């Protein structure tokens, strides 16, 4: 075990994968300097510029080249800097990476990890603050991962590199400095983590919202509401069994995410649980507004522990 922050935890997961398998390479803007969040620190020194590749600001070609590398037998981990910039590479993600294996009838696989830090990033406004997991979850062929802790960022990155599918890997930009104990335990894709047991309500969330959700659940305990909290961790394939099992026991499901509530991934989870179990479902997500720059505007887009607590108490 080591005490690492969220960025260091990912870096150490990547370092282990690169040490174990020479086919794993890292590529993107500024990765040689360690990445703008330090999530690649030290890798250039250890593996050299052949495997830690600085690229031009060419998102289409970063993603497209990663597809070509994967088809030619490598396992690229590519950096998109922020999820908002990955939109410059949507053709390469959606039409190429996600489709190649199928379109070519199983000739070639596109095993790659596309890291695209998401979420609200203080004061960085509308083009650096989006949570777009639902977009990618909608595309057959893609795996979508959103780690919420240093341990998960370590283990899920390793699992993503190993899985052989194209993985959209959504780190949260406000979690980089968060510290935690990180061990070598494996973290499986598609498995939620039970963070808190409860009997009155199931709260499903992921990424940075996990912290606020736990705080709200704690507070709810003081007024006699027992809330079970699940960190989904993998958005697709989401842990349907765990969510159904918990919702069946508690009879209520609340899905909470930072992404815009309308057509957010919470809608998918809530609909599936309601269709399958007939239990009551609610969603809490961001308002359908761009994230504003000024603090009072940005606050409108954020979820808070108080807001989540309110949603819990209102869900009778």
């Amino acid at each position, binding site marked *: 075990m080591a005490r690492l922050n969220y960025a260091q935890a990912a870096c150490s997961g990547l370092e282990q994968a690169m040490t174990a398998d020479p086919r794993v390479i890292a590529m993107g803007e500024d990765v040689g300097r360690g990445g703008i969040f330090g999530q690649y620190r030290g890798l250039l020194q250890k593996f050299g510029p052949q495997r830690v590749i600085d690229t031009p600001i060419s998102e289409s070609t970063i993603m*497209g080249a990663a597809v070509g590398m994967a088809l030619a037998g490598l396992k690229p981990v590519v950096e998109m800097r922020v999820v908002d910039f990955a939109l410059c590479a949507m053709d390469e993600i959606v039409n*190429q990476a996600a489709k190649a294996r199928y379109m070519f009838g199983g000739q070639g696989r596109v095993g790659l990890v596309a890291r695209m830090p998401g979420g609200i990033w203080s004061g960085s406004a509308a083009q650096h603050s989006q949570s777009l997991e639902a977009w990618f979850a909608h595309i057959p062929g893609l795996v979508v991962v959103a780690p919420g802790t240093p341990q998960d960022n370590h283990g899920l990155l390793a699992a993503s590199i190993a899985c052989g599918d194209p993985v959209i890997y959504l780190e949260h930009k406000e979690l980089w400095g968060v510290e935690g104990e990180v061990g070598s335990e494996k973290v499986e894709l598609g498995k939620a983590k039970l963070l808190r047991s409860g009997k009155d309500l199931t709260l499903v969330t992921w990424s940075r919202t996990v912290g606020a959700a736990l705080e709200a659940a704690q507070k709810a305990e003081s007024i006699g509401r027992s809330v079970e909290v699940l960190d989904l961790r993998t958005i697709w394939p989401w842990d349907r069994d765990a969510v159904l099992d918990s919702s069946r026991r508690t009879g209520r499901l609340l899905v909470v995410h930072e992404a815009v509530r309308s057509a957010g991934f919470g809608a998918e989870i809530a609909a*599936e649980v309601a269709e399958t179990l007939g239990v009551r479902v609610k969603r809490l997500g961001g308002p359908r507004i761009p994230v504003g720059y000024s603090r009072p505007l940005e606050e409108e887009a954020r979820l808070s522990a108080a807001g989540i607590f309110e949603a819990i108490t209102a869900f009778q």
Partner: protein
Amino acid sequence: MKGASQNPTERGLALYRSMARIRAFEDAAEEASKGGVSAFGAALSQDVMVRGPLHLSTGQEAVPAGVCANLFRTDMITSTHRGHGHTLAKGASMEKMMCELFGRATGFNGGKGGSMHIADFSVGMLGANGVVAAGIPIAVGAAHAVRIRSGKEIVACFFGDGAINRGPFLEGLNWAAIHKLPLLFVCEDNRWSATTATSAMTAGPGALARAQSVGVDGLAVDGNDVFAVDAAAGSLLATIRAGGGPKFLHAVTYRFKGHVSVDPATYRDGQEVARALENDPMPFAEAKIGAIEAKRIRDEAHAEVKRVVEVATAAPWPKSDSAYTDIQDTGAGRWLA
């Protein structure tokens, strides 16, 4: 494909054979596609063999034939939506391609791709592509992978004149140049971007000048002269194989048919088309190798195509279960929730 013999006569015959097979394939595919798509005023027919948009490379055969004659089987290519010629010239099975166009289980892609997504990884054909210029970054990545593992292969990237107006064209050229990748860019310039003349949509002196502006040098060549394409590609590829970094081949040819097979292309000037037909690469090459040999090769190609159409017509359809395979391993089976 690059063979042992460099005898000029045999090479000429091989080049002509490569072109003749493409021409025969395209003609047969065109015939089988009539009624395959409702566009350009054409109506959809239910019993058509080749469904959907079919982009024919008829008239452009000299470019893939001339370039691929200089590639080894282990070299890789990426192609375009108009990719049958590249696929055949790279050595892929005509039968498996026709089966794929017919949507059969025995096609290269098991019926999952069709004409626009033909691929044969066994000969280094990394895929046609339904998106203009999308093959360029993929070729860059394949060439970069070769560099990383210190391989000897090169990658040839085919794209059309329309692609030079997309961003990935500049991105890919720049990337290949800064990393000195073993990559040949081949602009197969048929002068039409779908139904619009590329000249009307393209500023400046053109494809090669754009490549040269980022330090990727190359050659412009008559893309209807298979011998000229062969010579130019051979010279550029020799430089690339010697470690000279990426090069560019601009081959000007002409698209004999419409954008898709059912497009009568009435938007084109009749005189332009007539002039282009006079420059048909097939008789041009025939004049060099002789009419008797040319006819023999064409007859062989027609016989081969006739056979593969029969095979494809009788080939089994994919089982509906296969719609659910080759998608992803993580979460496989979770198709509905």
